[in-house]
């Protein structure tokens, strides 16, 4: 009897082991990155990643790369003393959660190539300290995600992303604007752009070498590079984060554009380039160089250059007066003509070229592009035919060139006739004549590109809403198209607002109604059963 029992037990164990092996094999096969699929049923597809990200992760896997994500989430210090602090804690918490979940998706797609390390500041302090030293993480940086990539046989390269600054879109209302309402002064998490930031960082780490952007300041005497007011510090910092190294070009010391320049930046020029500099720039463009020129209008009369020799060579000119546009009238009280007479006519809502790579993504996102202090860009008579011109930004058809008063300030009144659309952004492309086919196949640029945009949009004030346009322009010009066309995240926070009467009703229905219904149904079943 005992032997029989033993035999039965053995049989059961053997069958269980075999079936367990089948189960493990089945799960192993289903877990293979090539065979597993993710189905996203959320309405905003918040759990999905862009096809570009999927391709990127699959490419990394096939290249044998090792991708590491390191999360540095320091513990919240102290208690929230007020609503503002509490809200900041909540936003940080939500950003942490969204990032963690997003990385789960990256891990699922990337398979064995992707590893996520969440560093615990208390439980594993030595390891966290070691990682912090390795990635130059400092406590003051708060919540940080380090994206690191190691290609086979190469050094580990990494980039740091700040959760609140790079991944979140936080709206911080002006504290002085609403003294009556404390709630209205709290910051709100408006969106999450984690995928865009993380995938861009990943892609930038794959680009060999560091592109150098040379900033030409000689013609911009009042240009400020700090991160306050109307300076350009945020733009330059964002360029640094996307992998550029920004240096200054001093034509006095170095007449030609440096040979290692990936592009030349000229921000808010206040006078024309000297002929020498203009020709050096044009020569650079003819050799496949890239120039980004961002003009704006100034109330000082001689601070509005029209392009000079460089514009002549490319075949464009700029208006001296700013472009204004009637303010759209959504209520239709002016029969679609919009209103004028207000300083807000200087703020232009622009139509964006949906086909050009630098503006395509912005056009698809449906966000309105706004610039201030813009001037008209127009083709010069006798423009060279070899230069291809493509409009990038255009106003609506209710625009006009402002008439300047004797004090130099423009009138905000629209003229009675002659309203039309104005171009305020244009791309110029010059084919590079390369006789040696080997040079072309080696990846040499095939055309020189100049992007001219008029109007303020990438200074500190404009970087928040429109910084991606400026970065896209620079990335595209530096031949780093790999960074383009990442969709904006579908996540858009919708906050639930519940009032006390609603809560009361919910409590009544859920706490008394539903269980009561089940109790009544159960009693009914028993009563019927007893009667049968």
């Amino acid at each position, binding site marked *: 009897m005992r032997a029989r029992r033993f035999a039965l037990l053995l*049989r059961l164990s053997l069958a269980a082991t075999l079936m367990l092996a089948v189960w493990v094999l089945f*799960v192993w096969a289903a*877990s293979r990155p090539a065979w597993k699929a*993710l*189905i996203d049923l*959320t309405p905003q597809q918040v759990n999905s990643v862009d096809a570009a990200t999927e391709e990127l992760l699959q490419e990394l896997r096939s290249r044998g790369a090792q991708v590491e994500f390191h999360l540095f989430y320091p513990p919240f210090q102290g208690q929230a003393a007020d609503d503002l602090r509490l809200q900041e804690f909540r936003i940080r918490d939500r950003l942490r959660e969204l990032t963690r979940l997003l990385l789960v998706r990256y891990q699922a797609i990337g398979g064995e190539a992707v590893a996520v390390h969440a560093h615990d500041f208390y439980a594993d302090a030595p390891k966290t300290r070691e990682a912090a030293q390795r990635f130059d993480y400092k406590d003051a940086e708060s919540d940080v995600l380090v994206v690191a990539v190691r290609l086979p046989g190469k050094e580990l390269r990494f980039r740091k992303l700040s959760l609140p600054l790079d991944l979140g879109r936080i709206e911080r209302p002006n504290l002085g604007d609403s003294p009556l309402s404390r709630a209205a002064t709290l910051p709100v998490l408006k969106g999450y752009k984690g995928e865009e930031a993380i995938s861009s960082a990943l892609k930038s780490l794959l680009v060999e070498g560091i592109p150098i952007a040379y900033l030409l300041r000689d013609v911009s005497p009042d240009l400020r590079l700090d991160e306050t007011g109307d300076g350009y510090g945020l733009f330059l910092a964002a360029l640094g984060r996307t992998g550029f190294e920004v240096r200054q070009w001093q034509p006095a010391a170095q007449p030609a554009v440096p040979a290692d320049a990936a592009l030349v930046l000229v921000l808010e020029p206040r006078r024309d380039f000297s002929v020498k500099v203009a020709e050096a720039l044009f020569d650079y463009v003819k050799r496949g160089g890239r120039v980004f020129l961002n003009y704006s209008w100034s109330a000082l009369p001689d601070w509005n250059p029209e392009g000079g020799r460089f514009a002549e060579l490319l075949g464009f000119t700029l208006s001296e007066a700013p472009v204004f546009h009637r303010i759209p009238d959504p209520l239709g009280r002016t029969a679609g003509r919009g209103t004028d007479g207000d300083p807000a006519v200087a703020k232009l809502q622009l139509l964006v070229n949906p086909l050009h790579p630098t503006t395509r993504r912005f056009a698809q996102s449906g966000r309105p592009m706004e610039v201030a202090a813009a001037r008209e860009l127009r083709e010069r008579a006798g423009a060279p035919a070899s230069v291809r011109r493509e409009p990038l930004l255009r106003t609506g058809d209710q625009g006009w060139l402002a008439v300047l008063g004797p004090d130099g300030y423009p009138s905000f009144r629209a003229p009675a006739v002659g309203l039309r659309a104005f171009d305020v952004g244009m791309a110029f492309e010059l084919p590079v004549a390369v006789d040696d086919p080997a040079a072309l196949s080696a990846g040499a640029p095939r055309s020189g590109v100049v992007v001219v945009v008029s109007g303020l949009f990438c200074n500190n004030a404009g970087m928040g809403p429109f910084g991606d346009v400026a970065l896209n322009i620079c990335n595209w010009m530096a031949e780093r198209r790999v960074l383009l066309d990442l969709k904006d995240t579908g996540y858009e926070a919708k*906050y639930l607002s519940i009032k006390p009467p*609603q809560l009361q009703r919910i409590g009544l229905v859920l*706490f008394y109604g539903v269980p009561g219904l089940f109790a009544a149904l*159960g009693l009914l079943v028993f009563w019927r059963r007893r009667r049968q």
Partner: protein
Amino acid sequence: MNGAWVTFRKELLSYLVSPIGWVIAVVFYLWRGYDMEFLALRFAVYRLDQELFAPQTYGLGSTFLMVMLVPGVLTMRTFADERRTGSIEMLMTAPVRDGEIVLGKWAAAAVFYALLWLPSVAILHLLEYPPFLDADLAFGPVFAAYLGMFLLSGMLLAFGCFASSLTDNVLLAALLTIIFCFGLLRLPQQIGASLGELGQEYYVRELLDKLDVMRTFSEWFARGLIDTSQVAFYVGGIAFFLFLTTISLSSRRVA
């Protein structure tokens, strides 16, 4: 398959008329009502993202109760009680294959379990209306959560059937299932922590993630994301435990 269908109908009816099913329903919805009211209060105070409401209902204590305790209670009688009362002899001599009996009993328990969950969808739908939350709660993730819940509970119920087939003591059978459920809740994390670097290996990590059923459920299914490898894990798990139950039953017959 006719045997499985007959067994399924008989078992499902017995669940519907047994007091235990109704007691579970009343306790579950009482607790869930309290939980959801508290959750709504949290959303009201902190003005949280409305898309989180439906997923967070699956992280409540009542969900934990349903996942950890109810499978054991529902399946404890499936075979243990038959053996205790002696009716197993009738079952064994009936012209029905062991596999069909197992499948019928498991399917009845799974369908009853799904029926227990079903009103919670109606509750979420009800909350969408203006007198309550007045918000679009997104039913895509709700569907995914129910699929996940069905698969997870299916696996736990299959284990419950297996546990019940091992003993004639219903309480022991329930206890075994509950221990198994709690084991799934705690062990994968502890094993992962003790494995160190090995735990970071892709397939080890995948297996531990899948064994960590509550985390898998709350981070994937409850958020509207279905991973086919997890579906495969649960389907494989159901097949595995039902197979073991059949073997266990056959062994008894031989004994």
